[in-house]
């Protein structure tokens, strides 16, 4: 073993010297791209999963979302039907329809947000785990009033627009004026939240008001919470069955939070596939490049191989030396890729509002894959080097 380790250290030094040669850089770049894709793929997937889990846990495992299908073929969901769900099903402890209203919030003639107002009931605050910072949330007794509760970023914008206290400020939305009765705690919510509404940028109004003032108002979502002790899947099934009976002509889908997360992961799957394809192709191209570099290196260093053989290197020693060199090459590419891939992942996270972390799995996979590429594509050159006849090698230039 001592023998092997001495040769190993020697080979390591050799490889590092060779690395300094310029023509290897392009190959390293390609391997780097490959590893970067793999890293980005794995970490983005990991992060998205963690994010989904986090949101899932924040909302509770017992959330059921009813997605009402649009289009001409199915009938429109009426507000009464949506509101009736809350008290009619033992499997459901609370429910709120979500009505999307006019877009664009104005305060004192200035824009304080570009989103759409959201019509909800009192129950929504608990369903979405909203915390009120000041004032109060909407009450079911507010039905039809032009009152609203604003998210933290909208409140910031109101302050910026010149009103020191957002509470009791007036917002103009779609030609109507709403008085602010509550400001929500900051949430820093990510895109892709199972609720589809980012509370920080939202303005919540009583659902009846939204329903009345919005032209062609539609209920696209109903959020519900399963009753204690009821499994979320069962609750989803019960909700679907209840609506099928009450509004047979309305197309809808009741899904649990867990199913929502599965859908989100499926969407991520497309990105994963794309990155995986880029990664595989560039790893193959890079690997072939590394193989060529190593083959050139073997033929350029024939004399060195001959000398080493004359000094007592066995075929195995020579093979090991060149294998280590090619692994060092790809591993260096892998390290570059790790950095680039992590940076790319950071970018994805920043864009999506996800919490960034470097996943251990991605590091292990990245370095593992790059070593494997080095071994795989280094095998042939290393074998060729080890099979050189030392006499011929010593004559070679």
């Amino acid at each position: 073993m001592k023998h092997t380790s001495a040769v190993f250290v020697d080979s390591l030094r050799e490889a590092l010297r060779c690395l300094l040669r310029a023509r290897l850089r392009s190959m390293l770049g390609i391997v780097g791209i490959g590893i970067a894709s793999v890293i980005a793929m794995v970490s983005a997937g990991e992060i998205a999963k963690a994010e989904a889990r986090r949101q899932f846990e924040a909302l509770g495992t017992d959330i059921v979302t009813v997605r009402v299908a649009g289009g001409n073929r199915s009938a429109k969901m009426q507000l009464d039907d949506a509101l009736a769900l809350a008290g009619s099903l033992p499997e459901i402890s609370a429910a709120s329809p979500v009505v999307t209203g006019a877009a664009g919030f104005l305060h004192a003639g200035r824009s304080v947000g570009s989103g759409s107002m959201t019509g909800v009931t009192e129950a929504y605050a608990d369903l979405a785990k909203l915390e009120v910072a000041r004032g109060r949330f909407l009450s079911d007794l507010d039905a039809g009033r032009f009152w609203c509760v604003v998210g933290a970023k909208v409140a910031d914008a109101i302050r910026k627009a010149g009103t020191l206290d957002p509470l009791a400020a007036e917002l103009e939305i779609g030609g109507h004026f709403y008085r602010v009765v509550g400001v929500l705690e900051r949430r820093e919510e990510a895109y892709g939240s199972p609720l589809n509404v980012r509370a920080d940028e939202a303005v919540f109004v009583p659902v009846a008001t939204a329903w009345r003032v919005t032209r062609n108002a539609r209920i696209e979502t109903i959020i519900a919470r399963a009753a204690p002790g009821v499994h979320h899947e069962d609750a989803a099934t019960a909700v679907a069955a209840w609506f099928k009976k009450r509004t047979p002509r309305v197309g809808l889908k009741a899904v649990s939070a867990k199913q929502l997360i599965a859908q989100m992961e499926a969407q991520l799957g497309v990105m994963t596939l794309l990155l995986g394809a880029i990664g595989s192709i560039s790893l193959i191209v890079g690997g072939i490049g590394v193989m060529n570099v190593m083959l050139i290196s073997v033929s350029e260093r024939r004399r060195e191989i001959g000398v080493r053989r004359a000094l007592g290197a066995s075929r195995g020693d020579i093979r090991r030396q060149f294998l280590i060199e090619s692994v060092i090459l790809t591993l260096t590419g892998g390290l570059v890729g790790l950095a680039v891939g992590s940076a790319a992942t950071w970018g994805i996270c920043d864009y999506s509002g996800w919490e960034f972390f470097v996943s251990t799995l991605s590091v292990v996979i990245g370095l593992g894959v790059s070593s494997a590429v080095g071994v795989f594509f280094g095998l042939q050159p290393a074998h060729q080097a080890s099979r050189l006849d030392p006499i011929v090698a010593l004559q070679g230039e």
Partner: protein
Amino acid sequence: MLELADIRKSYRLGPVEVEVLKGIDLRVDAGDLMSIMGPSGSGKSTLMNILGLLGRPTSGSYRLGGRDVSTMSDRELSAFRNEHIGFVFQSFNLLGHLTALENVALPLTYRGMGRRQAGRRAEEILEKVAMGDRLDHRPDQLSGGQKQRVAIARALAGTPSVVLADEPTGALDSNTADEVMQLLIRLNRDEGVAVVIITHDPVVSLLCRRQSLIRDGMLLDGSAEMAESGAP
């Protein structure tokens, strides 16, 4: 210590088989200093390769250090080469990216010696060839004579049974050549290592205690002839 008996080597060149060595008998004992002279194409390189365990003979027996080497595997042969043979080449064959010290330590690393120990041994042997002040120089920072000194140190580093020197002065001017020869002779005397010099230069050959001639694949051992004719 080293004994060749009826060594033959033939190559196939297309349809014809060319016999390069036609039954070589040779014995080298510890402490020998001998030359093998011959014109190019006489088979002296082939003989050198066989002696150095780099090539295998077509037939005949080769015993080195009390063992028959003809049946050894590549791994055994490499280890045996590392242990018993030290090469000195005409063109030095130092590895250009290694320092003098690293070049000399290289055969010791293949033996499994630790880095520090190999370094100490390399330094010691470089002192012996008067290159102790050039340990960290790379070959391109050394003159031809200095390079050959480093190469000789490398050949001796592993305390081999025999140093095989293939035209060791072929790339040097006559003054430097003389220095290198004196160094080889001194090391042979002081270290007791057998030295076999392959050359086509009669001056070099004459400096050796024992001279032999290779021609057309046959070895004429001067000392043997002298012994037969009763000369001293």
